[in-house]
């Protein structure tokens, strides 16, 4: 019996040593926003960032998704931290409260939040994007290309973060085409607004009927409906977050890229190199955190003169010659 117990003790010691050996590999865990992976948008970009890090930096990665309504965000963050993940990422501003709490409980674990700002915790990095700058550029494209002098915007949930897209877009349209009118609609006032393609389509259709010929959406999976409306009515939609030009080739003018993948990759890279710091990291045009999607699907849709003008505007914003507003 004694021998048996000693045997177990030795074995368990060996086992724990061997697990120590494995943890030398840096482990990164991601918790997605409501909507989950496959939204062809925001969460997919986060997924790409993680995959890139796994491939190029040799880290170990795990991604999980909160349940319906996202009520178990906090448990998932805590779970990953408990399992010894070195970096835990919460994708979406809705993680702000949960992540603040969990980050205080695990001061030795590094955390990052996308779209949210958490200050005063050295182990938390906040990744925020200058969506208004990217929206300004797609707004400029819309303003230059509209034939009816009317363009539209469909937002998901009516909140400050989505207002940034709206305000930047409007500024871009007006900068190149002061006479153009911008129609604005929001799908809802809760998180559900990001997964209702039916309402997205209805709103886009009503804007097209009112004379708009280009509609930009910032509404997650609801945007599928906006793009469908453009396809059905032979007008243009502008995609958001990921490159959505392929969803309905010929009817998606361009997409405003919000490079969550770049931000996540950079964060993992800093961690691997031991350069991880807390605080707020801003990703704008200058940092290549936002941009405009040009690919084979819209090669023939946007004329060179427009591209040139947009490239110039981009430089003007980076140089500070144009200051894009970010709130109403």
């Amino acid at each position, binding site marked *: 019996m004694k021998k048996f117990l000693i045997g177990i003790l030795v074995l368990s010691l060996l086992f724990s040593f061997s697990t120590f050996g494995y943890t030398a590999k840096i482990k990164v865990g991601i918790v997605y926003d409501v909507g989950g992976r496959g939204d062809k948008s925001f969460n997919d970009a986060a997924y790409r960032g993680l995959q890139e890090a796994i491939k190029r930096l040799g880290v170990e990665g795990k991604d999980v998704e909160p349940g319906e309504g996202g009520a178990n965000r906090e448990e998932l963050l805590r779970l990953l931290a408990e399992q010894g993940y070195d970096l835990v990422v919460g994708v979406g501003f809705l993680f702000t409260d949960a992540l603040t709490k969990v980050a205080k409980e695990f001061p030795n674990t590094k955390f990052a939040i996308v779209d949210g700002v958490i200050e005063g915790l050295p182990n938390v990095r906040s990744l925020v994007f200058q969506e208004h700058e990217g929206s300004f550029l797609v707004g400029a494209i819309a303003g230059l290309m509209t034939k009816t002098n009317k363009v539209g915007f469909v937002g998901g949930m009516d909140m400050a973060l989505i207002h940034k897209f709206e305000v930047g877009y409007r500024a871009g349209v007006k900068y190149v085409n002061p006479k153009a009118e911008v129609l604005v609609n929001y799908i809802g006032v809760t998180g559900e607004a990001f997964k209702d393609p039916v309402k997205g389509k*209805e709103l886009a259709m009503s804007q097209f009927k009112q004379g708009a010929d280009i509609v930009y959406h910032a509404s997650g999976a609801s945007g599928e*409906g906006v793009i469908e409306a453009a396809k059905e009515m032979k007008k243009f939609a502008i995609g958001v977050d990921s490159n959505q030009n392929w969803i309905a080739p010929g009817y998606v003018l361009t997409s405003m890229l919000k490079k969550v993948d770049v931000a996540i990759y950079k964060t993992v890279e800093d961690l691997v190199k031991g350069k991880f710091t807390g605080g707020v990291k801003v990703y704008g045009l200058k940092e290549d955190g936002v941009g405009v999607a040009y690919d084979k699907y819209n090669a023939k849709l946007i004329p060179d003169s427009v591209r040139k003008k947009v490239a110039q505007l981009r430089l003007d914003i980076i140089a500070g010659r144009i200051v894009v507003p970010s709130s109403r």
Partner: protein
Amino acid sequence: MISGILSLELLISALRMSVPLTFASLGGVFSERGGVVNIALEGIMLVGAFGAVVGTYFTNNPWIGLLTAMSFGFLIALIHAVVSITFRINQIISGTALNIMATGLTTFLSRLIFKAAGSSPHIEGMVQWRFPGTNWQISPLIVIMFAVIIISQIVIFKTRYGLRLRACGENPYAADSLGVDVIKMRYSGVLISGVLGGLGGAFLSLEHARVFVEGMTTGRGFIALAGMIFGRWTPLGSFSACFLFGLAEAFRMRLEGFGIPTQFIQMIPYIVTMCVLVGVVGRAVAPAYDGIPFEK
């Protein structure tokens, strides 16, 4: 501004948005007239929306998608019927469980089949029917909906089947003593509601958005049930109620952008509902044995 809001377009948009609600609330009428509360309609619509896209995706034939949607709805309703009629489990609990199951199941299968989470690829919808001699087009499902409303009204109030179904909801013991097979009648009501709920879901994904998005019903099944109560458990009443909901929604969409806060505008459909419920409809009386399991 007024002319921009009040237009034919408003009515068409309202009709489009009322179609899924109407199908589901007609389903609710059949189920509850027979005495079974069916809050599983939300889940039934969701599997219907999913089934429509899956069927169309694999066959490129939206009519097969429609059949898939109806059979998926039928299956969920069958579970509800077995659990709540045969095993006499509380109908609300069964319905809630099925709603949760439908969310998980469609999410799981959608990822398995489409190899991507969140949403399916876009699909082609039905060929629209054209009014002879005009440019007006209409979705076949809308035509089907009007036919179903009229048929339901006749079946429930003018046929022997309808009388028996209603008897099972009002007083199953009296019906039983007169030789009506209460269990069978209740099964039929719930199964019809499954097929109709599936159709409602099919309209959402197949005819409207042309894509399936996880959880895309966003509470429409419950709104449909409100429409049913509001319509006093009659097919025509339910349609009117659902059309009013659609109208309020279409109205609020067009009211935005005139400087009124969105949050305030978003309340309009619900305020309209409450005002109409209180002011016009008055007390709505449910079938007396609605929600009560039948035990011989």
